[in-house]
């Protein structure tokens, strides 16, 4: 599901208006806005009205003006689009249903309708809508409580508190010495060091687990099934011992299911550092599903790029990321899409564009390898695709040698200087490329010139590209293509 699925249609539109305004430097004409939204003018006016009414109480942090011609937005220095988004999410009825459910574990329709000050029938409708989105997590709200695999329920809450609801609110409600102590104990037990950012993730997870622990019948059938190859896993074993010992100190009954939940979480959400993970990787069973998929994908990547092998540390890092992705794919379903990093890599980065088909192929391979008759959900796959892609970008950019480009323009001095500089500045944003004015006898990978050469030896081994029209986009495309060829 998407973060905006927690919002109502009109709220999404309001968000879009604000985000359009921000990307247009705070001012946009009615016509452009109407085009973008494809709504009637009356409905735009409504949305603007609604924005105005809440921004009026926002202490000048944000102010909107409109006159039927243009819309203007003023943001305080401290205000960001993300904060605005947060505010919408905070107000949303669907968000409130989930936070209520989290706090009390169950509700009656009457009780919740009263609490949210909405009618019972509209509460029903909201729950129905939510359930529709929750399908991809394979859970649903039924009889006033969550129904489904425990791992999926906690995973959904985790995504919810990590991306949707303000996590600081949750953390400040619960942060206690006990939590800090628990994380410290985990570090002691596993003999690992957890970074402060990961500690925060872990805190959220532990708070969720704490809220869920006393629920009588937790469903763990699917998890137990998936855990079969991991019952002797060294990390799982340690977690199991710790879980049993930890809860033996309270009057809380747990079974292996609880340990399995934590095992899946720790691995999928990269809680361990690369170093600690590496220690584990040396001990784990290489034939278990996740490890063997890691190897398969790693080899596919190496073969694809014709690398003989990766530098030791880079290979370790690749495995580190692959395990997280594959653990996610192996145990979990569904996702809340929040960041637009996919778009960023795919559209803004030329490398992303060419790597995308390969990332898709990897994703296809891994979903096929893990085929378990369970229909995989789109959001999780989207996230995984973007993860594969960023891993590929990461590896290729690490592996790229810096290509030397020499610019040798045969022109009048003044033009030569200017156009060379302009060309250099156009090439500069490309990854792994260094360009300069041609220096004779220096070794280059690519020479850009405007005249066909006569002396074939002049540039030694270097490849030569003759510019058809200096600074044309046609040339730029060709140059990019050649650079990529040179790199593989």
């Amino acid at each position, binding site marked *: 599901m998407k973060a905006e699925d927690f919002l109502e249609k009109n709220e999404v539109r309001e968000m879009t208006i604000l985000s359009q305004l921000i990307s247009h430097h705070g001012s946009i004409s009615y016509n452009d806005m109407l085009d973008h939204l494809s709504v009637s003018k009356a409905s735009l006016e409504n949305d603007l009205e609604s924005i105005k009414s809440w921004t009026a109480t926002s202490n000048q942090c944000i102010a909107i003006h409109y006159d039927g011609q243009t819309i203007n937005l003023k943001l305080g220095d401290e205000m960001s689009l993300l904060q605005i988004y947060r505010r919408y999410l905070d107000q949303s009825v669907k968000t409130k249903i989930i936070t209520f459910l989290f706090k009390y574990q169950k509700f009656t329709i009457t009780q919740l309708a009263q609490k949210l000050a909405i009618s019972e029938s509209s509460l029903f409708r909201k729950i129905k809508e939510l359930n529709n989105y929750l399908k991809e997590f394979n859970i649903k709200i039924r009889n006033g409580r969550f129904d489904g695999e425990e791992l999926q329920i906690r995973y959904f809450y985790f995504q919810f508190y990590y991306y949707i609801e303000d996590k600081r609110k949750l953390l400040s409600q619960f942060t206690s010495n*006990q939590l800090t*102590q628990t994380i*410290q*104990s985990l570090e*002691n*037990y596993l003999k690992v060091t957890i970074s402060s950012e990961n500690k925060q993730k872990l805190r959220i997870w532990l708070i969720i687990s*704490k809220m869920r*622990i*006393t629920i*009588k*019948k937790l469903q763990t059938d699917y998890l137990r099934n998936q855990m079969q190859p991991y*019952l002797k896993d060294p990390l799982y074993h340690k977690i*199991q*011992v*710790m879980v*049993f*010992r*930890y809860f*033996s*100190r*309270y*009057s*809380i*009954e*747990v*079974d*292996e299911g609880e340990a399995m939940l934590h095992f899946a979480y720790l691995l999928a959400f990269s809680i361990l550092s690369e170093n600690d993970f590496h220690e584990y990787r040396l001990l784990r069973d290489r034939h278990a599903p996740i490890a063997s998929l890691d190897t398969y994908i790693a080899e596919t990547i190496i073969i694809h790029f014709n690398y003989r092998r990766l530098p030791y540390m880079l290979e370790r890092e690749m495995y580190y990321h692959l395990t997280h992705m594959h653990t996610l794919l192996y145990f979990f379903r569904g996702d809340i899409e929040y960041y637009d990093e996919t778009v960023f890599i795919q559209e803004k980065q030329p490398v992303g564009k060419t790597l995308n088909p390969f990332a898709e192929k990897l994703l296809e391979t891994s979903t096929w390898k893990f085929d378990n008759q369970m229909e995989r959900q789109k959001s999780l796959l989207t996230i995984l695709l973007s993860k594969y892609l960023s891993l590929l970008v990461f590896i290729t950019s690490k592996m790229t040698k810096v290509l030397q480009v020499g610019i040798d323009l045969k022109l009048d001095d003044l033009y030569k200087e200017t156009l060379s500089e302009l060309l250099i500045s156009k090439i500069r944003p490309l990854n792994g490329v260094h360009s300069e004015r041609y220096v004779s006898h220096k070794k280059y990978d690519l020479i850009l010139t405007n005249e066909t050469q006569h002396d074939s030896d002049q540039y030694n081994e270097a490849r030569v590209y003759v510019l058809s029209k200096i600074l044309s986009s046609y040339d730029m495309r060709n140059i990019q293509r050649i650079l990529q060829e040179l790199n593989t």
Partner: protein
Amino acid sequence: MKVVIIGASFAGVAAALETRKRHPKAKIVLLEKQTTLAYIPNGLHLYWRNEIADLNEARFITEEQLEESRIDYYLEANVKKINTSQKIITYHYFGKYEMIAYDKLIIAAGSKQLSEKIKGSAQESVLKYKRYEEAEAALLKVKASERITIIGGGQVGIEAADLLSTQKKKVTMIESMDYIMFKYLDEDMIQPIQRKMIDRGIDLKLGKTVSTIDAVSDHEVNVHFADDSVTSESVIMSVNVRPHLPFLDTHIAQHTDQTIAVDRYLRTSIKDVFAVGDCIQLSGPDNDQVYIPLINNAVRTGIVAAANLNEPELEFKGSLRTIGTNVFGYYVASTGMTEGESLFSNHKVKTTRQKIKLTSLQNANTVTVKWIYDAETHVLLGAQMISTVNILEKINTLALAIETRQTIEDLQQKDYFFHPSYTQMIATTNLVSWMGERVDGDEG
């Protein structure tokens, strides 16, 4: 002043007697849902040990003693509701609902042996015997059984395994952790007992958690764990006990684990309501809040609550989880923090394990002692002992040492008697590197 106490077991009775001592004029009422009074929870073990001839002898106090102290008690009085705003308790008594008002209320409703995770654990062939009636039923059932499966390798489970294997029963013991009695002993200390169990033909299944129990016929049940199962005529549940408090009103704050939240004076979140015994958490060996359901804690919390009825006078000092028992020919005892548990604590600990002769005689018996102490300050944090002779009383010395924050060096200075038939050069409870045969451990 009218003091009402829910539950007339160790905690409730101790609270009643202490209240009488402090408040000669108070009216004291004990409400107890059982049909009999003051049954000792491991009475069945005493019977199997031939230490009592009849389960009925396993009583820690008599009705006469209560009457002498002018304590009113109602048996078969099952408390159903408490209303803390009006200070009224509703209980079910011989087919009718009765109400009683209180000035001070002490909740001593203890704990039950129950599992919510093990499917089928509520059926009849699954034995529990904390209560008198349960013990009577278990006694008969076990008599008629050849094969017995025990779920849970804590103190109760291991005692039962020992006693039943002596009766030539075929015993299977299933324990979630990698070794038995893990709450009290470290893995290195428990080895002799585990070996002895295997020698005695006990099928020891470690690292296995029971998921389901189902009846296969009138007299046979299957216990399932991981991908395995075992068949027997009866099953003994010796898993952790848990409070069962359906009668609480919502004003009384509870912890996540359903225990009642109390302060150091054992006051609950509601004025004039106290909670004691197995239904609360205590400050444990590391001064953190933990659940330690033991009789000594029940009694001591009962006394402390009674002392604080009017004014907060006496703080509860906490529990070191001191235990002692005799199983499979070994006397074992433990107090304070174990090495395994120390990972939950802020202390960096050191440990030493020594085998020490108990007397100065040639053929002296030995005891293996493990000390757990703070690596920096050398303050003693925990101790464990195992021997083939009865050394149980010695653990109390070490418990006192921990409570009074003695260092390993302090202990060496303690006065002790010497008699060659009973002691050797140095008291057993001292860690002196040149005395014992070092088995293992860090530099002392």
